[in-house]
């Protein structure tokens, strides 16, 4: 008979009809019911494993206005008799949290169909004294999707709100305050902590890649501790320092000097309107980082950890010893030299080489150098909770990343404690502390030196002798040896931030805040270059030692930055008018003190301390600098009826970096928005267009990043020798520019925001940005004899557009999202006073900043006649050499024939973020790419035998009279013709890369509850797994301009866990 089968079901907020469908699929029972009747039923939450049909049905029908009877294989659903539907009142208690379990104080809870309503308290808790038996709660909170939850007697209700798709109601952090996203009139991108923390990187900047339109992050290196991304917001606005200003909880700081796990959100202020309140430092955009704070009283402990391995994405393939010698001889003979290697030696290599590697070395330099484990791990523990008066969020982070070469490492300890005090309804305070110790370690001679030599030394040089001693390498430069035992360069970055704010709110519409935040920084360097004894093949000690003496340099740079800020905010709504006024004052001053000490000649190199070095050659040095900035700023926000929005900002900045008379400048901005969707005439479309806004902004921003004293001409001290005595010297080395003043960037922005069906949101923006009086060190005539000072020269334009599209959808229990951002910027140098530098990457009038400049290659010379008839080139030119275009037809190829051949600024940058979750599983992927960019590899990176180095396998495909359609020109040793900067060495650097992919599984509650764990998620993650590009073989397209000596980009595989108690 019936009830025999066991059912497994897990549904949330399902309709009864859905449950019936599921049950009949699993059990062969059929349901008979009236569809209209089911409309009165409330949603069902059910989670059963191997349960009886009876249990399932009882769960489904509890509290429903319906009941059922089972007739053989049919279940008949009917209304409950009216008399049993009498209203029973009972109390309800519950809590509202976000998906991570953090309470949402202030969430509104209403009982559906009644006028009962309450607001969740500080801990997200709420209660009703009496609700009807079948009550349904409607829970809403700004920025989150409204939830409908049915109530069961006696059971506390746990309501979890999901962040709203379009994020329309979300609150966005802006300069010196917050703003509702719907009311924003400037251009602000926000990044959530979850998007950052999915990436297994040590540096926050690298994690920002691909997440926000208009924000281009380029990561050039995979070296632990040096793998930060370079952030460019809306193009490159200036010729000097183009880094955005970064504020961590309002204090200017370094984005990479914070544990990414402590970040709650990041706002990126992109246009002048939103960043002008930061005036003189905002020209390159502003990044506001907000750290996590305790949200409720409930004590929560979180533990997040991952571990994994890295390996290089790409490496050039080098030739073996015999090939190196044969190709070298070919190159020597081609330039009219005698062959370098005797045929006899090459023969011996072939016949006796394998048996006698000491005499005939064959070293795979890459294999021997890349012996680092590449292991990395991250642990982050946080404790959050408190009372109504005091709340605290304390966290401890540990990150350790070992490199793919030995002695390369990055370790960071971070400690952060954010505390909120509430003295009374009117007075509150925040007291935050952060201490970070980040230590980077690399070989004493630098990781770059390791890769330089690794890809340079021919395979026929000895790396490790057969008796295990170090071979001579190249004249004592043995990257295997010096990367493993040649001493280390260690840089410890310690910083401490205290951030104290006092808030006073005498009346509801007036708030004031005073902030004092001292920042202490310390960079301690210790570089020990240790002698490595190398041995000749016969076992005798070699005198080729690099370095020739062990040497130790210790440096200490201590800085202190003082921040004082006071703001007052007036906020009042009068009928349909909303008015907000902010005024503030701030002061920042900075001072640093640098000392260095040096000794060499360590007789006992196991004791790398200064006292162990010889006193005879000791050196000490030191210097100091300071700067100050003081500012007044203000903002006015006005909106009428939530339809017409207006904002104006003003900042008055004074800087010590300019001479008296030029110290102060004003930076204004204005913006306005119109929420069309709020207009009456849009009402018929309300179900389609959830929101629609057009906005426009204009403003001026400044830049003062030009060193500390560009206006002052200062005498430098030094030393020299006369008559074998040390003498002190003084000299004027740098020209000063007393007239130097502010650089100004003017920017206009227009944008459209649309949200459709509450699922799809689109933001499209266009901007026009022009920087004038750019602070730039322009070449000056060398006959002045002083290095050039910065001048107010140059005009640069950036015009661009951005598109961001977010879509969140669900198919039954499969929830998914697609976020796409695309942006483009056209950069152009408009004026440089006519001084157009030459060189590989140059800024020239009429072209983008850092354009690639060189000769236009026209293929290879076909024969001697071709050479003779063509314009005169460089040195001895033969068929198979590169032929360059004679741009000015003067029959001589020289500098005048150089033209801009490409641009290194990425265009059409995009990021595609995909995610899906199904039951406990979730999958996220990030695809990132560049649509258009030129890459340029040169020197030993790609040029055969550059400065005597070896060659790569791909160079075997070179021009010979018999093979004219080759990939590379004829081999020529020590001839410059083919090594000139030319379009030949340029390659398309566009790419699409699977930047990150993660698969996670959240364990079901019932499995973990017994262990006392609230939430447990396990995941696997892969970074940089897959790339499509057309760049040079052996090199990573993300570092598209290089000479082949960089630490390679890495792929990372990790697995991790998120747990909360």
């Amino acid at each position, binding site marked *: 008979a019936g009830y025999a089968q066991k059912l497994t079901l897990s549904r949330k907020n399902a309709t009864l009809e859905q449950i019936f469908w599921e049950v009949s699929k699993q059990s062969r029972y059929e349901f008979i019911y009236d569809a209209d009747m089911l409309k009165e039923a409330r949603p069902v939450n059910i989670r059963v494993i191997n349960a009886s049909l009876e249990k399932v049905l009882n769960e489904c029908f509890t509290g429903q206005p319906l009941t059922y009877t089972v007739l053989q294989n049919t279940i008949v659903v009917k209304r409950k008799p009216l008399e049993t539907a009498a209203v029973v009142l009972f109390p309800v208690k519950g809590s509202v949290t976000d998906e991570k379990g953090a309470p949402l104080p202030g969430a509104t809870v209403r009982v559906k169909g009644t006028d009962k309503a309450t607001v969740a308290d500080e801990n997200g808790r709420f209660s009703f004294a009496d609700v009807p038996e079948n009550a349904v709660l409607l829970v809403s909170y700004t920025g989150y999707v409204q939830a409908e939850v049915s109530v069961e007697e006696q059971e506390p209700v746990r309501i979890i709100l999901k962040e709203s798709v379009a994020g329309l109601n979300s609150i966005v952090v802006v300069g010196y305050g917050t703003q509702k996203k719907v009311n924003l009139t400037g251009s602000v991108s926000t990044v959530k902590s979850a998007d950052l923390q999915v990436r297994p990187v040590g540096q926050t900047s690298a994690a920002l890649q691909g997440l926000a339109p208009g924000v281009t992050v380029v990561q050039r290196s995979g070296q632990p501790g040096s793998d930060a991304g370079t952030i460019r917001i809306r193009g490159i606005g200036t010729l000097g320092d183009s880094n955005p200003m970064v504020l961590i909880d309002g204090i200017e700081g370094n984005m990479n000097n914070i544990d990414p796990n402590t970040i709650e959100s990041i706002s990126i202020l992109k246009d002048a309107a939103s960043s002008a309140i930061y005036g003189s430092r905002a020209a390159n955009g502003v990044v506001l980082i907000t750290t996590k704070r305790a949200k409720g009283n409930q004590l929560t402990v979180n533990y997040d950890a991952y571990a994994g391995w890295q390996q290089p994405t790409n490496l050039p393939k080098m030739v073996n010893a015999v090939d190196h010698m044969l190709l070298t001889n070919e190159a020597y003979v081609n330039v009219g030299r*005698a062959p370098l290697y005797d045929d006899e030696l090459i023969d011996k290599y072939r016949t006796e080489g394998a048996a006698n590697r000491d005499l005939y070395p064959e070293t795979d330099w890459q294999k021997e150098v890349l012996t680092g484990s590449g292991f990395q791990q991250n642990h982050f523990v946080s404790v959050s909770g408190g009372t109504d008066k005091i709340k605290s969020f304390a966290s401890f982070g540990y990150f350790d990343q070992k490199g793919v070469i030995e002695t390369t490492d990055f370790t960071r300890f971070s400690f952060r404690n954010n505390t909120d005090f509430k003295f009374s309804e009117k007075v509150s305070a925040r007291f935050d502390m952060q201490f970070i110790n980040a230590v980077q370690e690399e070989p004493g001679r630098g990781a770059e030196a390791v890769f330089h030599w690794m890809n340079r030394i021919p395979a026929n040089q000895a790396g490790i002798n057969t008796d295990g001693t170090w071979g001579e390498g190249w004249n004592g430069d043995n990257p295997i040896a010096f990367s493993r035992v040649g001493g280390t360069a260690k840089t410890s970055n310690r910083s401490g931030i205290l951030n104290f704010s006092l808030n006073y709110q005498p009346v509801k519409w007036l708030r004031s805040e005073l902030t004092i935040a001292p920042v202490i920084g310390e960079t301690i360097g210790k570089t020990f270059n240790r002698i490595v004894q190398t041995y000749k093949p016969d076992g005798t000690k070699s005198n080729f030692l690099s370095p020739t003496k062990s040497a130790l340099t210790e440096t200490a740079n201590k800085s202190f930055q003082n921040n004082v800020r006071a703001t007052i905010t007036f906020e009042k709504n009068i009928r349909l008018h909303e008015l907000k006024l902010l005024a503030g004052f701030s002061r920042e001053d900075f001072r640093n003190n640098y000392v260095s000490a040096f000794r060499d000649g360590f007789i006992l190199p196991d004791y790398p301390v200064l006292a162990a070095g010889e006193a*005879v050659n000791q050196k000490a040095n030191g210097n100091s600098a300071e700067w100050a900035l003081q500012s007044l700023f203000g903002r006015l926000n006005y909106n009428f009826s939530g339809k017409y929005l207006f904002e104006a900002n003003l900042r008055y900045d004074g800087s010590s970096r300019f001479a*008296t008379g030029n110290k102060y400048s004003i930076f204004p901005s204005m913006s306005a928005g119109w929420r069309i969707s709020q207009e009456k005439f849009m009402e018929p479309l309300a179900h389609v267009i959830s929101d629609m806004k057009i906005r426009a902004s204009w403003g001026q921003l400044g830049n003062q990043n030009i060193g500390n004293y560009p206006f002052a001409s200062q005498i430098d001290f030094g030393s020299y020798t006369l*008559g074998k005595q040390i*003498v002190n010297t003084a000299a004027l080395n740098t020209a000063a520019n007393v007239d130097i003043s502010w650089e100004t960037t003017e920017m206009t922005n227009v944008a459209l925001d649309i949200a459709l069906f509450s699922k799809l949101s689109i933001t499209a923006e266009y901007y026009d940005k022009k920087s004038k009086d750019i602070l730039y060190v322009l070449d000056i*005539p*060398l006959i*002045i004899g002083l290095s050039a000072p910065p001048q107010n020269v140059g005009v640069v334009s950036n015009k661009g557009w951005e598109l961001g599209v977010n879509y969140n959808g669900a198919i039954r229990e499969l929830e998914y999202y697609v976020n796409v951002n695309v942006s483009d910027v056209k950069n152009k140098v408009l004026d440089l006073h006519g001084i157009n530098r*030459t060189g590989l990457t140059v800024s020239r009038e009429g072209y983008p900043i850092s354009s690639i400049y060189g000769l236009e290659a026209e293929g290879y010379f076909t024969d001697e006649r071709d050479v003779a008839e063509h314009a005169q080139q460089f040195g001895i030119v033969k068929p198979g050499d590169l032929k360059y275009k004679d741009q000015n037809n003067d029959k001589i190829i020289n*500098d005048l024939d150089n033209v801009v051949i490409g641009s290194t600024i990425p265009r059409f940058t995009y990021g595609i973020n995909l995610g899906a979750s199904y039951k406990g599983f979730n999958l996220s992927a990030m695809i990132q790419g560049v649509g258009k960019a030129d890459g340029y590899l040169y020197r030993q990176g790609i040029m055969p035998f550059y400065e005597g180095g070896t060659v790569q396998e791909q160079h075997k495909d070179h021009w010979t009279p018999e093979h004219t359609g080759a990939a590379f020109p004829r081999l020529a040793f020590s001839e410059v013709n083919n090594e000139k900067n030319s379009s030949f060495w340029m390659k398309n650097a566009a790419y699409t890369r699977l930047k990150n992919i993660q698969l996670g599984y959240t364990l079901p509650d019932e499995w973990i509850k017994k262990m006392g764990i609230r939430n447990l998620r396990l995941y696997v993650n892969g970074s940089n797994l897959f790339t499509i590009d057309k760049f040079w073989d052996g090199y990573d397209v993300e570092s598209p301009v290089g000479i082949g000596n960089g630490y390679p980009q890495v792929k990372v595989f990790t697995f991790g866990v998120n747990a909360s108690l």
Partner: protein
Amino acid sequence: CNKNYLEKYPLDGPSSSSFITNEQELMLAINGCYASVPFHPSAHNCPLPVILDQVTDLGFDRNNGTLQEVGKGSHDSNNGFFLSIWSSSYSGIARCNFLLDNIDKVKNIVSEQLYNRVKAEARFLRAYHYHYLVEMFGGVPVVTTSLKLDESQVPRNTKEETVNFILTEMEAAAADLPPGYAANESGRATKGAALAIKARIALYNEKWDVAADAAKRVMDLNVYQLHPDFGELFTYKGQTSKEIIFALQYLKGIKTHNIPSQFFSRMASGFSGLVPGQSLIDSYECTDGLSIDKSPGFDPAKPFENRDPRLGYTVALPGSIFMNFQFETHKDSVKTWDYNTTPAKRVNNTDATNAFATFTGYCWRKYTDLTDKVERTTSELNVISVRYAEVLLIYAEAKIESNQVDNTVYDAINTVRQRPSVNMPSIAAGKTREELRSIIRKERKYELAGEGFRVFDIRRWKIADQLMNGIFYGRIPRGLPAAAPAIDANGTPDYSAVPNRSEMRVVETRIFKTNRDYLWPIPNIETLTNPSLAQNPNY
């Protein structure tokens, strides 16, 4: 609020506007001028005098780079070697100008003697920079005061104007400079140095009387004399020699150079990167005073015997002891002797087997010293800029060219030829002007090879186009030339008649564009920032 909050001034040094307020500051400033004299304009980190000969017929730079390009003739106006010389020189000039512009602030504070001396030192150093610039680039902008940005569009002075400036300045400096200093202040400019540079630049510009006069005045100072041991002069022992008139000063930890690692043999753990060529070796006379193609004392099978001793002092020859190793470069000499231990050890010979052993089979010996054996990249051996032998040769050449040959000319040449350790046969009186011209030109080569004069000599003698075109030879890897090459009046060998010439190692094939390469190009960036500077022809 505090009005001074934004008033921040440099913490590391005084402002230039107030500088030179007392004697201490004056001395700091003049020392700063000296500090910019020994610059190292190539990747080798070697001073100018020793690298200049590598771009002549005498030497070769194996390291691919800007210097090799110049020797080979494939340079252009972007060559970093020229840029480095130009910018280093003008930065030195600016330091001198700054001092000279501000020295009057202490005129009444320091003694008149010191005021005059320091002023003369600065004028000497400024003219010293110009004397290189004018020979390398031709007429250059003669800048004599601190330039502001808006005053910097200065055109070139003519070569004549530039040369005259140097002559006048050196004369003026000589008036106020002392003949010498205490040992712990040696390295400062002296009267002799100013007159010697004056003589040098006059000679280069065919102002024969001026040159002879200035050289004679140096000789008459009776301060200088030739160092008896020619080889020792270029070692640590020779640093205090009375032959040295002006030297670039080095000291560990303060300023060092890299000559040892570039010059040493492979066995001595050097790179043998900068090396002399076969033609320098063959140009030295035999001890009988005849060239090797004429001397009965020359044996092609033992080519290094019976030769002018300066050959062996200037060049490390195969078969000699170099840095305590038996120096052998015959490719079959796979073993050699290590004299660092007693008794000597038979060891593997990397000077024969290493692919990067000297390409020519020879190394420079001048400026190599066993003291630098270990710390090869940080030598503190002073490098001579002006020495007395040069002054004697300037005197002789100027007199010969101006047709005023008398005994003093023969004396000057023979003093150089017959210093105790050299002892070459004297030149007998009665030579024609043509013969004497040949003698003096060869003598400059023998005496001064490796010291940075050759590039200017072959330019002014207008023989660079012959010497710098074609093949630069090294030794025959497994043998010797079967016969002596023909040696011309300038001492230049011609190998066309040597039977086994084809076995000689082709180290490099060079080109020299006669209509271009007699002058080096003004650095490209300088012509961009200062359009009033005209570039040299055909660059």
